[in-house]
């Protein structure tokens, strides 16, 4: 047991949950304005690729991340325009964008870097590890909290910022109202569409950061399809967390722990499939209890299967 749950375990859990948390926050923003974003997976993938490409061409981490943000934002604008202006089915657009992301990133991987499968550049600098002065000396907590990439800290900070935005600012209040009752909100002069586009763009930024953490966080490389379903796990975290920043953080923490646990178990030659299943099963069970909330109503608006 001690071997299983040592400090490195918790530290890796935090590292692993970061992309999920970031994307899930993006998903929560979209969900709150009535757009159920199935395309988180594709957005994260574009972000991961954009970060590597940016790093390659600019040899500068900040510019690389900015480049990733630009790429994903353009990508998310497609989602926004199709879903908001043209009123296409949000699910279909999300699925199509996932396909497009996979195709485009693999396509450009071949054309830009002339490699198959993965691009790995040993000379490329990845995200630094920040050793925070006082905290790293605290026993136990220090080893867990200190030494992560800046995006990890940014993720938690952003979760807090979104919480503050939703529940303390006027703009955030109007944002929530636009999603809760768009008709009433627009009758009060609240520009619902503006908030929707804002949510989609913010989601793009968050997914770009998530992708950057993936491709530049531990090792600096891009693999075809490297998001490997994390975008969907993020969506699950959004649902489980009821599209609220705190809930989403808690859910992401749970999934991060499960993910880290399954990596550990692999090391011990034990089946990981059941720990991997936990996020999905837990969410299905949660849906039995949280019936008429948030995402279900959004999904209901998109499809007509549940009444």
């Amino acid at each position, binding site marked *: 047991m001690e071997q299983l749950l040592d400090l490195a375990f918790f530290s890796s859990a935090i590292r692993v949950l970061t992309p999920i948390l970031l994307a899930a926050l993006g998903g929560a923003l979209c969900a709150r304005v009535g757009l159920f974003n199935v395309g988180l997976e594709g957005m994260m993938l574009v972000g991961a690729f954009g970060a590597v490409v940016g790093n390659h061409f600019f040899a500068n981490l900040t510019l690389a991340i900015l480049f990733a943000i630009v790429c994903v934002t353009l990508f998310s604008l497609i989602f926004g325009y199709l879903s908001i202006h043209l009123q296409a089915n949000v699910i279909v657009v999300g699925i199509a964008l996932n396909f497009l992301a996979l195709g485009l990133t693999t396509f450009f991987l071949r054309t830009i870097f002339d490699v198959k499968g993965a691009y790995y550049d040993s000379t490329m600098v990845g995200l630094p590890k920040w050793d925070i002065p006082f905290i790293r000396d605290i026993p136990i907590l220090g080893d867990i909290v200190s030494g992560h990439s800046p995006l990890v800290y940014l993720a938690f900070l952003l979760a807090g910022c979104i919480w503050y935005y939703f529940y303390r*600012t*006027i703009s955030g*209040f109007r944002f929530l*109202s636009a999603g*809760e009752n768009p008709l*009433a*909100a627009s*009758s009060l002069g609240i520009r619902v569409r503006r908030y929707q586009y804002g949510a989609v763009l913010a989601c793009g930024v968050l997914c770009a950061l998530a992708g950057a953490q993936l491709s530049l966080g531990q090792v600096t490389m891009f693999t075809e399809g490297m998001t490997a379903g994390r975008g969907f796990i993020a969506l699950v975290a959004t649902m489980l967390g009821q599209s609220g920043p705190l809930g989403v953080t808690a859910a992401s923490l749970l999934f991060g722990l499960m993910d880290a646990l399954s990596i550990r178990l692999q090391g011990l030659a034990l089946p990981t499939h059941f720990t991997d299943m936990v996020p999905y099963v837990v969410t299905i069970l949660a849906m039995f209890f949280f019936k008429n909330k948030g995402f279900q109503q959004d999904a209901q608006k998109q499809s007509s299967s549940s009444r």
Partner: protein
Amino acid sequence: MLLEMEKITKQYGDLTANRSIDFNLRAGEVHAIVGENGAGKTTLMRILYGMEQPTSGTIRVKGQDAAFTSPADAIRCGIGMVHQHFMLFPSFTAAENIVAGREPGSLMRFDRKKAAAEVEELCHKYGMKIDPWAIVGGSPLGVQQRVEILKVLHQGAEIIILDEPTGVLTPLEVKELLEAVKSLAKQGKSFILISHKLNEVMDTADRITVLRDGVVTGTVNSGETDVEQLSRLMVGRELIQIERKPSMPGVEVLEVEGLTIRGHKGKPLLDQVSLNVRAGEIVGIAGISGNGQSELLQAISGLIKQDAGRIALVGAEVSAESARGIREKGLAHIPEDRYVWGADKSATVQETGLMGHHRRLQRFGFIRQKAASSLVADFVRKFSIKTGTLETRTQYLSGGNLQKLIVARELAQGTPFLIAAEPTRGVDVGAMETIHSELLAKRDAGAGILLVSSELTEILKLSDRILVMFEGRIVGEMAAEEATEEKLSLLMAGGKQQ
């Protein structure tokens, strides 16, 4: 004079919803607008609130000409509207709902404490009581309505439009609301009260304007009139010639006893409704729509479940039966909303016309195509339904033609009992005559028909017996010979049977 609306006319294509309407409002006055469904009340208010533009006519607020292109314009002129269906955010608190759009605070911070203080100040000033921190979604409907009213007061409204405000309230909540309106009026606020409930209007309003078929039939002071005069102004038409054969009622085909459906928060949708229909007779239910008729019909046809009471169809208990089972026991149904219940817009005319017959016209699970198409072709011929071919999509049929199709379809089911809900709504005169004579023919052939209509002329023309529904209850019953438009409209508006 605070508000003047002069010669307001609104036309939608061929339909004239408002014709040269004059309406004015003084400061501190409660001025009610009454009329039947479709009289034009809602259209007039939508124009005032900036949701529609008048085809012609002028509006003046405090002597200044005003043109509203959106609700925001109207709000800026001090006009507030409390809609029939509340525009609230259920998960937010009362204070948040009230200040939404004009929240106190700075760029970084929504000052909720100040919002609650502002709300409490309003409550104190206007004598209304609510808890600013209560979550609106879980509050009773009377409280929700008070939140809506405080919202318009917070917006600085001097003129407040109340659109059918008491529909969902319990009697106690109604009393509180009307008291609040009178008290606010004393403090200088002006109200436009839209209602069909004449007793409430008589009690609360200073002046009453009656609309009928898009025109004003009279504006009276409440002290100088009574409910009978009002209902005559609402309805007064030429008496129609009734040419119906006397009915020969036979066995009971429908028996409803003590049917009750609990509504939300105290107000029942159906309250101990009992009635019966016999073979060979048409029982008409008169009433303004929204008084429980829809729920009654849906319960009888098995589309919703009642909370108490029993239903028997041709002698068989169907209280807990499914919609399919009830149809098989002998029910056909012309639904009140042809697009919601009666058809599938994306299906072909053939397919819409087949519903209910499809199980009968089959062989080994396959639909007998020839029989099916000749069935629907028959409908088209018999009722002169204008359609391209049977393969045309239902959405391309005009409303009237679709109604004819549905009537034809349901009459052809050959059942001992038929529900006909608003059977000639939106239908031209010629089609109306056809449908009416077909219904009478069905009744002469021995079927029992339950007719629900908000058109009094239709009720009087077709029914052998007439019931009146108001607020989920049967409030009156009379034989056709005794019925007059005045008696019926009085009961429909909540008056007492003489």
